[in-house]
């Protein structure tokens, strides 16, 4: 069993590495797939494992974009002047400035978002269930609106970052591997985290928070740390997106509440909430569905996507992994009553 798993993981890793070279035409789509996997896995940390369904995780993505861009620009030029001129090719970046700014920007984005998660979390974690979802959604929408009125970061026009200094194809592969590296790190991280006492504690919060309180678990602290970890990765992913997209603006690409903000939730539900592989499987399925509808359902793709959300939520909420768990419980080490009874005889 353990050997099978090693083989499986090696195959997936190998495929991830060769994928952009085998399918060079799909470089950007594959990078986006990794982005979906990152946001789905991190959403599941709070939504699936801790029982706090955030509709505002997109806040970290958008904030990550802006923080990374502001750091990268601010290291070299005055941010206000830069955004005023809307980039426009007047401002040049050397390779060192570009890559150094990007590295610091992405890391800074992650850290800044973690801090944001702690601050917002300490205000909103007293909200439960639907109020938490609405509250976090409100934070994301409000921030988007405020940023689009903030001239220093380009207002509604957004920010145009410098273009990748190499040729186009290398750029695509470069960003693919940035996303893939974060995605793989997230996966390894959560796989480890869910096996620790920390994982058990957040599961306890999900299943009965009042009982967890009564057992003396530091519930608020665990909730804040979990969200901060999720925010760190989402913020970094946002930072990478900022450089990959080159130009981004607040409402449609950064704080895209009804696009990526809701997609990540649907990915998790489609794949199976509260499971390790669910978000990954869901992200792949969802991304496939989205790409297919975008290419073949001219104009109606959004309606199809809305329908997918409704159908997933209403009819298939346990997701692929939940369905498997129900059909093949022994694969997941779940024992049922008959087996015990059989052993006793």
């Amino acid at each position, binding site marked *: 069993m353990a050997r099978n798993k090693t083989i499986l993981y090696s195959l997936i890793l190998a495929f991830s590495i060769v994928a952009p070279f085998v399918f060079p035409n799909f470089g950007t789509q594959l990078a986006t797939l990794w982005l979906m996997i990152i946001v789905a896995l991190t959403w599941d940390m709070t939504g699936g494992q801790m029982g706090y369904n955030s509709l505002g995780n997109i806040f970290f993505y958008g904030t990550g974009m802006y923080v990374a861009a502001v750091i990268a620009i601010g290291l070299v030029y005055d941010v206000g002047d830069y955004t005023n001129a809307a980039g426009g090719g007047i401002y040049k970046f050397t390779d060192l400035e570009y890559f150094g700014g990007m590295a610091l920007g992405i890391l800074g984005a992650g850290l800044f978002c973690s801090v944001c998660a702690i601050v917002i979390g300490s205000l909103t974690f007293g909200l439960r269930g639907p109020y938490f979802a609405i509250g976090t959604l409100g934070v994301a929408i409000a921030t988007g609106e405020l940023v689009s009125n903030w001239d220093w970061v380009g207002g509604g026009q957004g920010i145009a970052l410098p273009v990748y200094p190499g040729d186009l194809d290398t750029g695509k592969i470069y960003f693919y591997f940035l996303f893939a590296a974060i995605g793989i790190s997230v996966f390894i991280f959560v796989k480890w985290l869910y096996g620790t*006492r920390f994982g*058990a504690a957040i599961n306890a919060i999900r299943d009965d928070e009042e009982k967890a309180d009564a057992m003396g678990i530091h519930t608020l602290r665990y909730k804040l740390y979990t969200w901060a970890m999720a925010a760190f990765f989402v913020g970094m992913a946002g930072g990478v997106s900022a450089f990959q997209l080159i130009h981004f603006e607040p409402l449609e690409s950064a704080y895209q509440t009804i696009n990526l903000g809701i997609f990540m939730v649907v990915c998790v539900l489609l794949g199976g909430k509260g499971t390790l592989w669910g978000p990954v499987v869901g992200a792949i399925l969802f991304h496939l569905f989205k790409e297919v509808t975008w290419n073949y359902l001219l104009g109606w793709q959004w309606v199809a996507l809305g329908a997918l959300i409704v159908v997933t939520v209403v009819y298939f909420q346990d997701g692929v992994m939940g369905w498997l768990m129900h059909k093949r419980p022994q694969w997941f080490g779940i024992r*049922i009553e008959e087996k015990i009874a059989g052993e006793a005889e």
Partner: protein
Amino acid sequence: MTAIIEVRRVSKSFGGVVANKDVSLAVKSGTITGLIGPNGSGKTTLFNSIVGYHPIDDGSIRFEGEEISSFPVQQIARRGLLRTFQQTRIYGAMNGVENMLISLPHRKMKIWDALKTFTKEDYERADHLLEFVGLYEKRMLKSGDLSFGQQKLLEFAMALMNEPTCLLLDEPTAGINPTLINGLIDRLKRANSEFGITLFVIEHNMRVIMNMAESIYCLAHGQMLAHGTPDEIQNDQRVIDAYLGAH
């Protein structure tokens, strides 16, 4: 012997309804103390006040000499004062062992300890306590599938796993098959004598409480009616009247 819990002149009302009025009591360290009273006399409200579930209107509650009436539930729990619920609360989706592991005392845990996996000792301790309450055979079952009585035993084992100094039990025998009650009384007594845990028990079953407790308090209409040894309480006319409704 010193008092581990000291409740002094505690009052609590909900809207216009007075649930506790001027209640005072003391639970002595290392003993089993009972709390009885007719339905609606404010026993569970008093429990909730002690464990910090809601703020009290007036009075003082001390645990090991420290004023705890302004603390929230988790802080009090981390000081080693734990409670079980009248409506049993366990993690139904997890199996028995997982339930036990979650109950490891967090007050003894630093945040980096939380990033470790469970140790062999943790598992052994969980198995040992499950055996103590008689659930070892069922430890791998989803605990939501256990019978109500077994869930109560599991909750009790979880509380022991948390290594409390004092445990408040809200009707531990309610809903348990009468044939199992003797076994439960025996385990409660052993938890007290072997693990040295002070027990403070709400109980409706007179036979159980008279059998177990060294000292009993009786509440009626939110006020403290009587206090004494089981014999004294049994023969107290006011207690008998309160239960028969002659009050």
